[in-house]
C-alpha cells in the first residue's frame, strides 16, 4: 500500500464498492465549465479525474470534502425537541433547592429536568462513581449542570435557562491541590472521606544510596496547565426511544460502550435496552469519553421523559466551561548523576489536579508514574504520585495521557544535568537511554521488541543536522536582536492501556454472496483514519481491492464491548481483532474452497481478487458464491486480547505495557529579543510505529500531534479565576493556527513488532508528547534561560494566569 496508485475513477465513486481494473495513470480530458458560483469572474477547472494516492486513502474523504458527512447535529428527526444544560454561578455549594417553575412556564418549554427526575442512578464514573450527571447534593465545580431544559426550539430552551433559580449554601472552594491535601481541608466528596483520588508509586533500588553516590544533584519544580481539547465539534447527542422500547443514542463520542453504561445506569435499564450508534466525530483527542457519555445520558433521559426524540448540542462556551481538561501537574523532581554522566537516582513527587471528579485520573497518573524517568535506565527511583480532588474543572483523558507533563520535566532535567557536567546532552542521553534488553524503572525487561530509542534519535539529528546547528544557538547573546535555538526531546511510551484497564477488541467480517464485504471493528473513527486502516488491512488479508469492502460503524448492540478508542490503541487492537476474525473466516473458506482449487486450507493464497490453490484458482466473488451454495456462511468473528501485562501496586513494579514505542522530535526557532516573539522554523519527528498501515495517514498523525504539542508548549492555558474558567472561546483560548506552524518533517521508522498481530504499534499520542520539551530546550538554547512552567512565556512574566 505504499506505492502511489493513480486511477481514473470519478472521486464520487470511490466511496462506492466497485471493481477498479485499471489503476494505471489515465488522465481524461478535462472539461472547462462555467463557474457555477456565479460570484467569481473566473472560470474554474473541473475535472473528472482525480489522482488518489493509496498512501492517503481515506474512506470518508469524499463525504468530508463535500460537506455530506453527517455529524451528530446534522442528523434530522421528525418531531424533534431540543435540550440545553443549565449551570449555576457557584463553584462549591450545597444545593438547597432548584426552582424550575418559571422556566417550565417559558415559551416553548416542554419539560425541565433536575436530578429528582432520574429513574436510575445519578452516580457515575469509569473508576470511582463520584460524578453526578445532574447536580443533586452539591455543586462541586462551576461546570456542574443543575437542570436540563427541553423545548420545541433550541432558542426557546436557551431563553428559559435564565429562569432556573438555584438556592444554595456556598462552601469554601479548594482550588489548589496542595491545599486540598492539608489535613483540615474540607472534603469535596464527604462520602469518600478524603480529597485524595489516588496514589501511585515506583520503588526501585535505594535512592538514598543513589544520591550519596552522585556527584551532582539537581532539584527543580515544574508546573503545567489545564488544557482544553478544543475539538472543533462541540458535544452533541440525539436520542430517541424506539417503538420496541430501546433507547437509541447517537452522539459525538470516542467510547460508545462507556456511553451505553452511563445511559443504561442513568435510566435504570439493562445494557440491551440502550443502543449507542457510532456517529462521525468532529475531533476528540481523548476529550469525548466521559463528557460525551454525560451529554448522551442527559439527552436520553429527556427523550424518555418527553416521549419524543431530543437533541442536545453544546455551545462552545458551555463545552469549555463543563468539559474535562488535561491535568495540570506540579512536579518536584530531584536527580542525582555521577561525573561520568550516569543517572544514579531520581526522586519525584507528582501532584495532579483532578478537579471535582475522579474521571480517569488514576489511569492518567499511572502512566506518568511508570514513565516518570523518561526513556532512561535508572537503578534507584522513588516516585510518589497523587491525584487530588479540587473544585476546579475536572480533568481526564487527553492525547498523551499523563506523558506530556512528565516529558516536559525529564527532557529538561537531563539537559540541565549534562550541562552542569560539561557534557553534551546528546551524549548524556546516549549513556542513559534504554537499549535492547534494558530493564525499565518498573523492572520490565525490554527484550520482546526492537528497542529503537537510539535509532529515532539518530534519525532526527541527521535530518535536522543537529550537531552542526547546535553551535549556532544564541544563548541570549546581548549583541543579537534575534536569537536562534535548536532543541530536541525523546521518549518511550507504553503501548495501549497497559495495566490501566481491560484491553479487548472485537471485529466482524461478513462476506456477501457477490464477494462484497462488510467489516465492523469495535474501535471508533475519531478522524484519525481508523476505518480506512482497518479496510486496508482486510483488503491485504483477503487479497481483494479495498473498494469491495464497506465499513459499518459499530453499534453497541452488534459487537462486543471493545473499550474506548484512546491510548493510541485503535490500529493495534482493531487490527488484532481483524486478524483473528480473518483467521476464522479463512478456516471456513478453506474447508469449502480448498477441495475445488486443490491443496489444504492452509495452502490457499488470497491475492488479486482470487483464491489460489495448488491446482487452480477461483475468483473471490465466485468463491463466495460457492460458499453460499455450500451453505457455509463466510463470516468471521474475532476477538483480540492484548498480551498480558502486570502491575504490583504495593511495590510499584511490573511489566507495565506489552510493548513500547520510541520517538524523538526536534525543532529550530528564533526569539525576537525585544518583543519576545517566538517563531518556529523547522520541526522534525521520528517515531517507531512498528508498521505503518497507511503511511499517508500516519504522517497526518505526526503533524497533528506536533501541532497540538506546539499549542501545549506556547499558547494554551485554561485560565481559572476563583474556580471559574475565564477563557471560554477561541478569542481568549488560542489554539495553534497555520501561521504558528513550522515546517514539519515526519520520519516513519518501522520495526515490525512481533508482539502485535499486524506489526503496527501506536502513534497518535507519542507525536503529541515531545514538542513542549523540544521547544523548551530550543528556547533555552536561544535565550539562555530555562522555563519550568507551561505554557512557556518569553519576554513576559512567567506567572500562571497572566496573559
Amino acid at each position, binding site marked *: 500500500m505504499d506505492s502511489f496508485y493513480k486511477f481514473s475513477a470519478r472521486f*464520487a465513486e470511490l466511496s462506492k464498492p466497485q471493481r477498479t481494473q485499471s489503476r494505471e495513470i489515465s488522465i481524461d480530458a478535462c472539461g472547462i465549465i462555467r463557474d*457555477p*458560483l456565479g460570484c467569481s469572474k473566473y472560470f474554474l477547472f473541473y475535472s*473528472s479525474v482525480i489522482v488518489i494516492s493509496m498512501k492517503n486513502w481515506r474512506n470518508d474523504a469524499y463525504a468530508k470534502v463535500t460537506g455530506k458527512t453527517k*455529524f451528530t447535529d446534522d442528523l434530522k428527526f421528525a418531531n424533534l425537541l431540543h435540550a440545553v444544560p443549565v449551570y449555576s454561578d457557584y463553584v462549591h455549594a450545597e444545593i438547597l433547592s432548584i426552582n424550575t417553575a418559571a422556566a417550565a412556564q417559558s415559551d416553548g418549554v416542554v419539560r425541565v429536568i433536575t436530578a429528582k427526575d432520574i429513574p436510575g442512578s445519578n452516580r457515575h464514573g469509569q473508576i470511582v462513581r463520584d460524578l453526578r450527571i445532574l447536580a443533586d447534593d452539591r455543586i462541586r465545580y462551576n461546570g456542574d449542570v443543575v437542570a436540563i431544559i427541553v423545548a420545541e426550539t433550541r432558542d426557546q430552551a436557551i431563553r428559559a435557562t435564565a429562569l432556573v433559580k438555584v438556592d444554595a449554601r456556598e462552601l469554601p472552594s479548594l482550588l489548589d491541590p496542595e491545599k486540598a491535601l492539608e489535613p483540615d481541608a474540607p472534603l469535596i466528596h464527604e462520602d469518600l472521606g478524603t480529597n485524595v483520588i489516588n496514589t501511585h508509586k515506583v520503588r526501585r533500588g535505594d535512592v538514598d544510596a543513589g544520591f550519596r553516590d552522585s556527584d551532582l544533584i539537581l532539584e527543580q519544580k515544574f508546573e503545567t496547565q489545564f488544557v482544553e481539547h478544543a475539538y*472543533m465539534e462541540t458535544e452533541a447527542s440525539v436520542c430517541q426511544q424506539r417503538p420496541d422500547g430501546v433507547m437509541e443514542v447517537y452522539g459525538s463520542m470516542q467510547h460508545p460502550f462507556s456511553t451505553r453504561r452511563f445511559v443504561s445506569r442513568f435510566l435504570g435499564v439493562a445494557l440491551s435496552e440502550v443502543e449507542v450508534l457510532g456517529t462521525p466525530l468532529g*475531533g*476528540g483527542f481523548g476529550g469525548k469519553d466521559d463528557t460525551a457519555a454525560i451529554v448522551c445520558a442527559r439527552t436520553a433521559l429527556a427523550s424518555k421523559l418527553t416521549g419524543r426524540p431530543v437533541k442536545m448540542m453544546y455551545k462552545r462556551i458551555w463545552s469549555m466551561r463543563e468539559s474535562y481538561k488535561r491535568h495540570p501537574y506540579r512536579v518536584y523532581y530531584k536527580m542525582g548523576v555521577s561525573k561520568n554522566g550516569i543517572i544514579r537516582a531520581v526522586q519525584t513527587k507528582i501532584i495532579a489536579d483532578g478537579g471535582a471528579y475522579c474521571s480517569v485520573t488514576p489511569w492518567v497518573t499511572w502512566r506518568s508514574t511508570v514513565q516518570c524517568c523518561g526513556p532512561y535506565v535508572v537503578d534507584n527511583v522513588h516516585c510518589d504520585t497523587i491525584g487530588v480532588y479540587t473544585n476546579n474543572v475536572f480533568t481526564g483523558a487527553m492525547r498523551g495521557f499523563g506523558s506530556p507533563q512528565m516529558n516536559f520535566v525529564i527532557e529538561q532535567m537531563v539537559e540541565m544535568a549534562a550541562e552542569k557536567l560539561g557534557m553534551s546532552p546528546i551524549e548524556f542521553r546516549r549513556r542513559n537511554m534504554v537499549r535492547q534488553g534494558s530493564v525499565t524503572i518498573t523492572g520490565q525487561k525490554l527484550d520482546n521488541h526492537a528497542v529503537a530509542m537510539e535509532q529515532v534519535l539518530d534519525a532526527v539529528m541527521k535530518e535536522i543536522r543537529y550537531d552542526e546547528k547546535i553551535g549556532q544557538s544564541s544563548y541570549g547573546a546581548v549583541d543579537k536582536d534575534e536569537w536562534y535555538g535548536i532543541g530536541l526531546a525523546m521518549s518511550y511510551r507504553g503501548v495501549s492501556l497497559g495495566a490501566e484497564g481491560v484491553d479487548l477488541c472485537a471485529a466482524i467480517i461478513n462476506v456477501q454472496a457477490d464477494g462484497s464485504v462488510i467489516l465492523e471493528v469495535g474501535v471508533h473513527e475519531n478522524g484519525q483514519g481508523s476505518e480506512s486502516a482497518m479496510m486496508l488491512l482486510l483488503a491485504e488479508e483477503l487479497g481483494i481491492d479495498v473498494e469491495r469492502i464497506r465499513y459499518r460503524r459499530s453499534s453497541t448492540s452488534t459487537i462486543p464491548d471493545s473499550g474506548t478508542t484512546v491510548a493510541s490503541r485503535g490500529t493495534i487492537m482493531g487490527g488484532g481483532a481483524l486478524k483473528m476474525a480473518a483467521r476464522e473466516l479463512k478456516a471456513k473458506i478453506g474447508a469449502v474452497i480448498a477441495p475445488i482449487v486443490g491443496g489444504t486450507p492452509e495452502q490457499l493464497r488470497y491475492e488479486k481478487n482470487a483464491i489460489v490453490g495448488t491446482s487452480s484458482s477461483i475468483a473471490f466473488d465466485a468463491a463466495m458464491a460457492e460458499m453460499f451454495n455450500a451453505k457455509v456462511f463466510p463470516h468471521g468473528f474475532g476477538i483480540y486480547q492484548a498480551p498480558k501485562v502486570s502491575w504490583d501496586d504495593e511495590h510499584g513494579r511490573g511489566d507495565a505495557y506489552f510493548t513500547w514505542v520510541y520517538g524523538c522530535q526536534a525543532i529550530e526557532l528564533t526569539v525576537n529579543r525585544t518583543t519576545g516573539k517566538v517563531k518556529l522554523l523547522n520541526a522534525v519527528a521520528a517515531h517507531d510505529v512498528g508498521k505503518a498501515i497507511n503511511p499517508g495517514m500516519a504522517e*497526518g498523525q505526526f503533524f497533528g500531534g506536533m501541532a497540538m504539542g506546539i499549542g501545549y508548549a506556547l499558547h494554551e492555558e485554561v485560565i481559572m479565576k476563583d474556580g471559574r474558567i475565564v477563557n471560554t472561546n477561541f478569542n481568549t483560548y488560542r489554539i495553534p493556527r497555520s*501561521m504558528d506552524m513550522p515546517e514539519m518533517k515526519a520520519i516513519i521508522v518501522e520495526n515490525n513488532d512481533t508482539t502485535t498481530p499486524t506489526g503496527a504499534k501506536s502513534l497518535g499520542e507519542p507525536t503529541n508528547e515531545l514538542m513542549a520539551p523540544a521547544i523548551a530546550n530550543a528556547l533555552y538554547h536561544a535565550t539562555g534561560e530555562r522555563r519550568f512552567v507551561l505554557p512557556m512565556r518569553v519576554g513576559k512574566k512567567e506567572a500562571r494566569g497572566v496573559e
Partner: protein
Amino acid sequence: MAEETIKFKLNGKAVTLSTDGDRKLLWVLRTDFELTGTKYGCGEGLCGACTVLVEGDAVRSCQTSMKDVEGKNIVTIEGLSMNDQLHPLQKAFAAHDALQCGYCTSGMIMNAYSLLSKNLDPSVSDIVRGMDDNICRCGAHKRIIEAVQSAAKEMKGGMKP
C-alpha cells in the same frame, strides 16, 4: 422579532424566505435549508467552521444576519461541487489528505475558494496568512496549505484568458 421576506440566491438558485431578519445565516442554512455542510464551531466568528461565500467573499455565517443577505449570492460547500464533479479544492483536500475529522473542512475549503478567487497565484505565505483565521484542531495545516497550493495550480490552468 419581525418576520421579513428575504430573497437571495443560494447555490445558484433564487430562494425566498420569511424569517426574523436578525437570525443568523448559519442556522437558516442548517435548519431551514438542511444544508448541514456548514458547521457551528464557536458561534462568535472565531473559528471559521461556518464559512460560506457571500458575493464571493468568505464570511462567517454565524455572524451574518439574514437581513444582510437580501439580494446577495450565497454559496455553501454543497454548492461548490457541480454535476457530481468535485471542485479542484475539494479534490485537492482529498488527494492531500488535508483533513482528519473533517469538521473544519467545509469552512477551510470555502475560505480557500475566496482566497483563490482574489489571487490565483498565491505564494505559500499568502496561503498561510489567508488560512490563518480558520482553525483546525487535528493539525492538518501543512496539508491544507499544500492542497490549496495544488488547487490554485489546477484552477489557474482552467482559467480562460
